[in-house]
């Protein structure tokens, strides 16, 4: 039978604040266990939480970027459950009154735009991490460095109808939070995590089917695979006349299957209630407005504008705008060297190759937009060839030298464009290779390259290639 697939996503974003949500401890990743901890984030008796204002700022940013309404008096609530990584025995989260509600995100799927509703965004603290040492049987340790690190949870409406839509939504959402600078979007390291609620229903049925919640998918690819697996699993059950059970399932990456983690009966009763240690979060109009003013251009709009302003292919724009800093870099170069396509090519081919090799980001790039623009101008003027340009680029990159003009001069790399000099050289080479000229003229056209190569060899690659071609054609036909 044919079913409609219904998917809703819950996304947790670890926020890029310097300090934790309720204490002054550092959020720096990778410190020795429990170094980033204090009485507050380890749940010592009597310690009290104090809200980090920056977290509210980030949540409001995310809310405004997804067209949410900002709630002026949102409330922190305690979510009560026992687990060793949760030092207080409750997680401070938001429940009845989250900070953002009722937004949406437009996604592109198969050349069409679809609007996905966002139910809510709320702030909460992360839990610590359990460490199970291999060689100590029956012993576990807890590392509270991550405890109390700020998160926002973004909950979508069940508006997605395929795994492709789910992935498109997730990608668009990640783009946004990364652009906003609130989250680094790293799925592998878990700073951007996603749970999926999936159900099937017969076409046209008004009510939703029973859903399963999927956890533990740490890449876009896994989200897609896990959803597809789950859809098939539920389809088989329904086709066989069975009933889908409400449960939480864990995706097993290695085996490519999901397994039940807990059923509805074992579901926690979290006993949410307003946290009496924290006052309602008051976000007035002025605060919202100041955040709105500080919002960057969001990825979708930026893409549209770049396509329109610079007339370069959409595929290139997507690469260039995947990272806000990269897009800024591109635009900065174009401002100084107004050939967008050439700039795009140099960034995507040369620059990205170097950055990838160094595993670094555009923000760490040793070549400034000014330096790159200058280099492109040198090529455009014909002062150096494209080939020499690449060589200069490499030197600029490794020496962090942004004066290519000086570099070309000092090393005598300028292109040889003197027609007389080149003509003499061509004459010499033709004369010295009499037999090859004959072969060429008898139809072995491939040999043209041989003559070009000889010229380049003699000029250490500095001969102007267009002129060499022209001179050779005149000489040997």
């Amino acid at each position: 039978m044919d079913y409609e697939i219904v998917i809703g996503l819950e996304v947790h974003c670890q926020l890029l604040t310097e300090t934790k949500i309720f204490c002054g401890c550092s959020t720096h990743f990778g410190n020795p266990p429990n170094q980033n901890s204090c009485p507050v984030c380890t749940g010592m008796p009597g310690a009290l939480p104090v809200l980090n204002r920056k977290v509210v700022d980030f949540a409001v940013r995310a809310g405004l970027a997804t067209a949410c309404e900002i709630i002026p008096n949102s409330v922190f609530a305690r979510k009560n459950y026992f687990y060793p990584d949760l030092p207080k025995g409750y997680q401070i989260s938001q429940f009845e009154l989250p900070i953002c509600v009722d937004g949406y995100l437009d996604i592109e799927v198969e050349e069409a735009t679809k609007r996905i509703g966002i139910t809510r965004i709320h702030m909460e603290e992360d839990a610590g991490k359990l460490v199970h040492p291999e060689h100590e049987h029956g012993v576990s340790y807890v590392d509270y460095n991550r405890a109390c690190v700020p998160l926002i949870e973004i909950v979508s409406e069940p508006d997605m109808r395929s795994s492709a839509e789910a992935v498109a939504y997730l990608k668009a959402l990640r783009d946004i939070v990364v652009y906003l600078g609130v989250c680094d979007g790293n799925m592998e390291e878990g700073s951007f995590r996603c749970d999926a609620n999936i159900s099937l229903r017969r076409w046209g049925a008004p009510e939703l089917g029973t859903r399963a919640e999927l956890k533990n998918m740490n890449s876009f690819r896994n989200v897609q695979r896990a959803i597809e697996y789950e859809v098939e699993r539920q389809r088989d059950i329904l086709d066989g006349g069975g009933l889908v059970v409400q449960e939480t399932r864990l995706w097993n990456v290695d085996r490519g299957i999901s397994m039940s983690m807990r059923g509805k009966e074992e579901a926690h009763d979290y006993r949410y209630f307003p946290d009496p240690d924290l006052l309602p979060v008051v976000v007035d109009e002025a605060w919202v407005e100041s955040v709105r003013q500080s919002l960057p251009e969001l990825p979708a709009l930026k893409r549209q504008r770049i396509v329109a302003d610079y007339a370069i292919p959409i595929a290139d724009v997507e690469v260039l705008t995947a990272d806000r800093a990269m897009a800024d870099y591109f635009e900065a170069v174009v401002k100084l060297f107004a050939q967008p396509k050439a700039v795009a090519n140099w960034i995507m081919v040369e620059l990205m190759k170097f950055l990838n090799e160094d595993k670094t980001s555009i923000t760490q790039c040793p070549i400034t937009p000014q330096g790159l623009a200058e280099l492109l101008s040198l090529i455009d003027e014909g002062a150096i060839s494209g080939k020499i340009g690449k060589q200069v680029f490499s030197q600029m990159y490794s020496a962090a030298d942004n004066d290519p003009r000086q570099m070309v001069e000092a090393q005598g790399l300028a292109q040889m464009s003197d027609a007389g000099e080149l003509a003499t050289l061509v004459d010499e080479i033709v004369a010295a290779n009499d037999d090859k000229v004959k072969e060429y003229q008898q139809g072995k056209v491939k040999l043209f390259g041989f003559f070009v190569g000889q010229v380049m060899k003699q000029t250490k690659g500095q001969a102007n290639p267009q002129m060499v071609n022209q001179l050779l054609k005149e000489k040997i036909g």
Partner: protein
Amino acid sequence: MELYNCSLEELWQRLEQGEVSSLEVTRSVFGRIAAVDDTIAAYLETDEKGALAQAEAADECRRKGEKTTPVTGIPLGLKDLLSTKGLKTTCASRMLADYRPEYDATVVARLREAGAVITGKLNMDEFAMGSSTENSAIKATRNPWDLKRVPGGSSGGSVAAVAAATAIATLGSDTGGSIRQPASFCGVVGMKPTYGRVSRYGLVAFASSLDQIGPVTLTVADAALLLGVIAGHDKRDSTSVDLPVADYYGALKKDIKGLKIGVPKEYFGAGLDPEVEAAVRLGCSQLAASGAQLDDVSLPHTDYAVATYYLLATAEASSNLARYDGVKYGFRADDADGLLDMYRKTRAQGFGDEVKRRIMLGTYALSSGYYDAYYRKAQQVRTLITRDFDKVFADCDVLVSPVCPTPAFAFGEKVDDPLSMYLSDILTIPVNLAGLPAISVPCGFTKAGLPIGLQIIAKPFAEETLLRVAWHYEQLAGWSGHRPTLAGEAV
């Protein structure tokens, strides 16, 4: 008079004038502890070595003419739920029997900063849950006025220490009457400041929206002095309020003529001991005679306060006490098999009966399907109770009532009947629900020689008025400063 018998105010003045040294005062207090604390059992732990060092430092400070405060060099005791760095903070629970905090509560830090001498940690009902200190997992504190009776609770140790002169003053905490009720049972002054007036940072939480730290002292002036040191905004406690701290002591003697005093009729209802009623009524007329104006007022939702309190306080407690799970600090059952079993056994063995009872009540009140009927409803009633006070305070400056319907009861009298124990807080609980400041001032003795307390309640953050009325009453009535005669002492 022995130094340990002096009020904080008197010692402050004598220290400032160089008549006595803090070392002498501190030695006197520790001598007193050695003499009577075996009998009273107010202390869970004393820190004589630390105290003497602090006393020397205070004397040094005065010798050098450095800035001092009213508590510089004064020996003060702390209820054992105030975190003290390096000094055990047990909450009178098996769960925290060996727990030594790595930080000082804000009030403790302020006392240290002000040069106070910390004598030690005082007994209480386990996690402040109780009205008699009988729920301490460690020992039973006796009422210095009658050793067969309870000192009240939960700050029983803090109050008995002041009554027995084993500390010049102490700090307690008041969630539903835990300072005022024992103060009335032991004939001393006990004050609960407005919610938010004193930082709760480092106070081991029972019910976060109700808990407040306050002074227990021999006189109202002492309470004013001590409050002045601990009050004020703390950025570590989001619920502490950023309002200036008045000169409470300096304002005590201002006139109370024309002040309007409300007498809530619901606080003089059935179950009120006739001797208590007579003493409090007499107190009211003494205040009237000094120029204050008495008015009968009504707080119609009073009857719902105890039920409301036991839903909200237990709900918060069920969550606040979840952290005692055997993972990070405190007691861990050693016969556990696996994580779940560790949780179960640790909490089953680590908590006493009353704590478990309240955790279960609170868990129930928050459970899915019951939340609206219990927790949410209780919050709504709390609002109604607060509005009752708002209305009355539109016309009155303060309210006067008994603190507790009865004087101190005997050990064992109520332990098996939690409901009747809960009802002993009926006149103090509404104040916590509304977050108001209130004080218990001695107002006489029963024929059997048991102290009686008079409660004065003021508007939010009107501690200055509250203390002023209390001070005037104290001057008129003259019941403060009386000392019980303990076994072995000359009568």
